[in-house]
C-alpha cells in the first residue's frame, strides 16, 4: 500500500512540477518588468568572450555606458557563437520572438525578415542621429526598397595576405598580374611550399576567388552583380571564363591539398602556422596580423598584403570584393521599440572609434584616424579602401538564401573539377531564373 502511495505521489509530483514551473516562469516575467519601472531591451550578439575577446569587451563597455546614461533602460544580453546565433534566430523568428536588438547580415540574408515584417525601418535614426556618419554604400546593403533595416558595424575588403619571409626566401615579389601570381605558385610548388591556403568547405572562401576573377575579366562592368540582379546572364562569357581560370589555378596546384575538405579556420591556421604562403581573406582578420597578442609577434611582422592582381591586363585592381559585415537590427514587434532604437543608435556611434582602437577592425562609420596611433598595415588598408573604385558585395550575401546555397555548392564542384565552367554557369543561371 505504501508503495502504491509512493507511485501516486511521484506522478502527482511530476505533473505539479510542470505546472509550478509554468507559473514560476510567469513570476519571473513580472519581476523583470516591475523592477523600479526600468524597461529591458533584449540584445543578442555573436561575439563570445572566448573567441572574440576584444569585440566582447567593447560591447560590454558600450552597454555599461549606455545603462549609466539611461538609468531607466536595462540591456539584457545573450551571446552565441556564429552558427548557433544563426540557428537560434531562425527558431525565434518562427515564433515571432526576435530579440529587441540583434545582429543581421546584409542583402539576401535579411530580405525574408524584412518581407515578413520582422525588422523595424531605421531610416529615422540614419537621418537624424547618424546622418552623414556612415561610409557611403554601407547602409545601402542593408536596405530593401530604399528603406534601411540594418545599421552596419563593419566594412571589409578582401585582399591577399602573404608571408614576407617565404616570399623573400625564394626572391618573390608582390604580383601585379595573374600570370605573375601563377609564376609565384610554380616557384613555391617547385620548392615544396604550399602556395595558397584555402578552406573551401566553407565555400564562400572559394567564392571570393571566383568573384575576383569574374570582376577582373568583366572589366568595368560588374557582370556578376548584374547577373544576380537579373540585368544580365550568369552565362556571360566573362563569368564562364572566370570559372575556367579557377580550374586552371586548381590544376596548377595553387591551393593547399584537400582544400575542399578544409574549413576556413583550418586554412587560416595553416597560413598563420607558416604552412602556406598566401591567403585571400577579408579585412576582418586584420587584428590577427596586427594587434592580436595571442599571435606571435614574429609572425605578425612577416605578414604583408597585396591587391588581387589584374587578369590579362584587364580589370581595375582598385575594385574589391567585400562589403559590410554584420549590422544591427531592431525588432518590429518589440515592446520597447523606442528604447531599442535609442540603444542601437548609441551603439553605432560608440562602436566606430572603439572598433578602430580597441578591436582593430574597420567600422562602417567614418572615423577620423589621423590622431590615432594605428598599425601601418591598418592605415594602408584604410587608404586602399578610401581610394576603392568599386566594392562588389559577396555573392552569397547578395543572393537569396536559396540561390546562395546553389552558388556555394557549385563553387565546391567547380574547384573540385566535378563540373565544367559551362555547367557551373548554367546551373546558377537556371537557379537565378527560377526565382
Amino acid at each position: 500500500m505504501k508503495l502504491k502511495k509512493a507511485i501516486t505521489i511521484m506522478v502527482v509530483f511530476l505533473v505539479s512540477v510542470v505546472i509550478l514551473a509554468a507559473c514560476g516562469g510567469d513570476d519571473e516575467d513580472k519581476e523583470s518588468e516591475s523592477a523600479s519601472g526600468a524597461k529591458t531591451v533584449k540584445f543578442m550578439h555573436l561575439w563570445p568572450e572566448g573567441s572574440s575577446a576584444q569585440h566582447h569587451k567593447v560591447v560590454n563597455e558600450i552597454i555599461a555606458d549606455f545603462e549609466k546614461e539611461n538609468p531607466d533602460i536595462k540591456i539584457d544580453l545573450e551571446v552565441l557563437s556564429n552558427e548557433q546565433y544563426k540557428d537560434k534566430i531562425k527558431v525565434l523568428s518562427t515564433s515571432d520572438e526576435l530579440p529587441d536588438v540583434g545582429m543581421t547580415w546584409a542583402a539576401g540574408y535579411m530580405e525574408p525578415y524584412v518581407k515578413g515584417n520582422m525588422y523595424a525601418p531605421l531610416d529615422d535614426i540614419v537621418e537624424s542621429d547618424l546622418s552623414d556618419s556612415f561610409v557611403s554604400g554601407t547602409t545601402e546593403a542593408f536596405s530593401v526598397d530604399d528603406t534601411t533595416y540594418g545599421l552596419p558595424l563593419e566594412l571589409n575588403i578582401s585582399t591577399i595576405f602573404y608571408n614576407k619571409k617565404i616570399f623573400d626566401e625564394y626572391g618573390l615579389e608582390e604580383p601585379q598580374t595573374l600570370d605573375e601570381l601563377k609564376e609565384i605558385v610554380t616557384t613555391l610548388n617547385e620548392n615544396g611550399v604550399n602556395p595558397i591556403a584555402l578552406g573551401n568547405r566553407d565555400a564562400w572562401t572559394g567564392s571570393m576567388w571566383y568573384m575576383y576573377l569574374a570582376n577582373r575579366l568583366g572589366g568595368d562592368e560588374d557582370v556578376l552583380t548584374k547577373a544576380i540582379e537579373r540585368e544580365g546572364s550568369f552565362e556571360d562569357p566573362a563569368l564562364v571564363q572566370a570559372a575556367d581560370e579557377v580550374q586552371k589555378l586548381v590544376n596548377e596546384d595553387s591551393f593547399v591539398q584537400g582544400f575542399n575538405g578544409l574549413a576556413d579556420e583550418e586554412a587560416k591556421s595553416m597560413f598563420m602556422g607558416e604552412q602556406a604562403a598566401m591567403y585571400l581573406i577579408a579585412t576582418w582578420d586584420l587584428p590577427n596580423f596586427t594587434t592580436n597578442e595571442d599571435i606571435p609577434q614574429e609572425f605578425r611582422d612577416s605578414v604583408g598584403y597585396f591587391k588581387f592582381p589584374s587578369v590579362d591586363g584587364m580589370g581595375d585592381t582598385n575594385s574589391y570584393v567585400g562589403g559590410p559585415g554584420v549590422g544591427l537590427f531592431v525588432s518590429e514587434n518589440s515592446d520597447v521599440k523606442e528604447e531599442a532604437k535609442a540603444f542601437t543608435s548609441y551603439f553605432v556611434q560608440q562602436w566606430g572609434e572603439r572598433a578602430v582602437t580597441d578591436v582593430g577592425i574597420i567600422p562602417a562609420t567614418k572615423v577620423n584616424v589621423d590622431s590615432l596611433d594605428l598599425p601601418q598595415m591598418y592605415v594602408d588598408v584604410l587608404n586602399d579602401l578610401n581610394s576603392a573604385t568599386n566594392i562588389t558585395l559577396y555573392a552569397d550575401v547578395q543572393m537569396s538564401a536559396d540561390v546562395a546555397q546553389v552558388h556555394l555548392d557549385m563553387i565546391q564542384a567547380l574547384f573540385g573539377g566535378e563540373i565544367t565552367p559551362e555547367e557551373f554557369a548554367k546551373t546558377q543561371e537556371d537557379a537565378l531564373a527560377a526565382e
Partner: protein
Amino acid sequence: MRRIGYILLYVCLSLVALFQIFPILWLFMFSLKTNQEIFAGNPFAFPTDPKWENYLKVFDGGIGTYFWNSIWITVVATVLTILVASMATFAITRMKWKLSGLVLGLIMVGLMIPIHSALIPLYNMFLNANLIDNPLSIVITYVTYNLPITVMILLGFYTTIPREIEEAAIIDGSSIHRLFFRIILPISAPIMSTTVIINMIYNWNEFVFVNTFISSDKYKTLTVGIQNFIGQYMTDWGAIGATLVISVLPIIIAFLFFSDKIMEGITASAVKG
C-alpha cells in the same frame, strides 16, 4: 598452439585498446597546444611549451555555473528517464493488455524523429507554456527524447525475466508495486546501470536543445560553454581542448563507477537467484 592463439588475441586486444584510449590522450595534449602547434605541428608531438593557461582561460570564462547546471540537469533527467522508462517497460512486457503493442509502437516512433524537425514546434510549445529559458524545459525534453532508447534497451532484458519469479511473488501475496520495486528493479540493476551510462552521456553532451530553449547564462550547460570559444574570426582551439577535457572528466568518473555497478548488480542477482 592454444598459447599462440591467446598471445595473438591479446596483441589484437591491446592494439584496439591503444586505439581507443588515444582520443583522451590526444585531447589532453591538444588542450596544451597553441593554434600553431595544433595545425602546423606534428600531430603526435608533445606540446613544446604546455599552455596550462588554456585551462585558466576556460575557468575565467565562468565555466563554474555551466558545470553545475550540467551536473544537476544530467542527474535529474537521468533518474527520471530511467524510472519512467522502467515503469513503462514493465507494463508493456510483463502485464497483459491489448494495447501494449500500440503503446510500444508509439514509443518507438520517438526513436525516429529527427531533432531538427521537432525543434521549432517544441520551441513554440514551450513558449506558450512559459517554459522558455527555464531549465525544466530542458529536463523534460531530455527525459522524453531519451525514453525510447531506454525502453528499447530495457525491453530486451525484461522479456527474458522468468515468469516464475513473478508468479512466486504474486502467489506470496505481494502487490504489483512491491513486485516491481522490490524484485524487478533490483534484478534489472545491471541493465539499468547500462542505461544510466548511456543517458548520462547523452544528457551531458546534448547541445541543440539547450542552445535553443535557454538564453540566460545562469541556466546554460557546459556544451554551450564550449561554443564560446568557437568564433567568427578566430577560434581558440587550445581553449576548446581544455573545455573538452574538463567536461569529459566527470563523465569518466561516473562511467567508471557505474561500469562496476554492472558487475555488482550481476553478483547480487546471482545470489538471489
